[in-house]
């Protein structure tokens, strides 16, 4: 890949005599960024957030107290900039640039843009992802147990879809059921009141029913989760604790529960 397709043409330019504090503020919004430093129309160097940090006051308080604010505010970009940036022609390949960055050999001049390590890593990510698409590693499927024949059908579809994706990606699947009538303390295994025995029995029954839904060959990659309370809350909490990257659920995309989950989920939701 030619570097001209990667470079940032609109990268910021600062004058060498400008205040370092002001330049650092501009860099703060872009941690992977880099400013081009010009001095009288000529390239003088570059300034990265790390350079600004290195030249600024010490990060250790007991050393920073010995730095006079009057002087630190007088620091200029020229005090902090890297004077020997790696310079490459726009036709250089990213491989050339990576090599130059590692070994720091510079060549001739006219500023057309800036390429940072972050940009190169971004291009590496893209290329690797084309070769091997990113895999999902954790999925969550929400199913309802006590349901009408129609709901059961859509639940089985959701489960089949989730199991299929899980197998293809070599992922782990969490099979979740949210019970409205269940005490939260019982679901979380905490001490509970008089009704607790009945509730515990219902919880165990739900877990067993969930486990029966999983085909034998998928048992090692599937775990069951039963939660109490509101369905949407339960799905979102389970997705957060298991780190789910995809939520699969039965139901039309327009259904209230599905819509609410899509709105609040930390990851994509697949409604079947």
């Amino acid at each position: 890949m030619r570097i001209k397709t990667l470079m940032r043409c609109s990268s910021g330019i600062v004058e060498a005599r400008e205040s370092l504090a002001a330049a650092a503020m501009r860099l703060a919004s872009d941690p992977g960024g880099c400013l081009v430093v010009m001095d009288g129309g000529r390239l003088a160097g570059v300034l990265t957030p790390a350079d600004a940090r290195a030249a600024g006051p010490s990060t250790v308080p007991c050393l920073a107290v010995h730095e006079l604010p009057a002087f630190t505010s007088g620091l200029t970009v020229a005090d902090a900039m890297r004077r020997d940036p790696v310079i490459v022609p726009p036709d250089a390949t990213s491989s050339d640039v990576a090599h130059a960055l590692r070994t720091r050999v510079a060549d001739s001049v006219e500023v057309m843009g800036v390429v940072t390590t972050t940009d190169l890593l971004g291009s590496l990510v893209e290329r690797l992802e084309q070769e091997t698409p990113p895999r999902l590693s954790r999925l969550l499927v929400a199913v309802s147990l006590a349901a009408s024949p129609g709901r059961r059908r859509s639940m089985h579809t959701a489960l089949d879809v989730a199991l299929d994706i899980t197998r293809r990606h070599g992922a782990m699947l969490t099979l979740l059921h949210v019970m409205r009538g269940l005490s939260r303390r019982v679901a979380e295994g905490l001490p509970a009141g008089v009704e607790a025995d009945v509730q515990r029995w219902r919880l165990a029954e739900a877990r067993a029913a969930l486990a029966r839904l999983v085909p034998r060959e998928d048992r090692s990659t599937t775990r069951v989760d039963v939660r109490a309370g509101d369905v949407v809350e339960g799905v979102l909490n389970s997705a957060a604790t298991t780190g789910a990257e995809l939520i699969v659920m039965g139901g039309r995309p327009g259904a209230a529960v599905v819509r609410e989950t899509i709105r609040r989920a930390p990851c994509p939701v697949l409604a079947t």
Partner: protein
Amino acid sequence: MTRDVRSLLRPVPAVEPTATLEDAEAALRSSGGGEAVAVVHHDRLVGLVTADDLAAARPSAATTLSIGEVRGALARIPVESIMRRDVATIVPDTPIAEAARLMRDGRGPLAVLAGDDLVGLVGAAELLSEVEREESR
């Protein structure tokens, strides 16, 4: 085939949390151009100090301390006081693409752990050599 970060691993310079900034700088230099020093206590990774962190800890040109006083301070201040505690960790099986993604998003350098054991660090230099390799194929 998905390649993992195993092929990128290099030995990691490590210091104790009580080691001084001077010790950390020496460890970094002796590692030959590494980006970071691991801070290890009882064989467990507790933090990371990068070359940039060490540079940022040094006083600016506006300091009133003499060179000798700065040197003395660097030989006294423990790395514990400047180390990053929230180190992004990966395993040897982590695909290179995932490591590059974390680095691109500014989460690096990455500590590579096998169980509790630190087996390497992956930083920009390791991944740049991967950019070189990929392109020249």
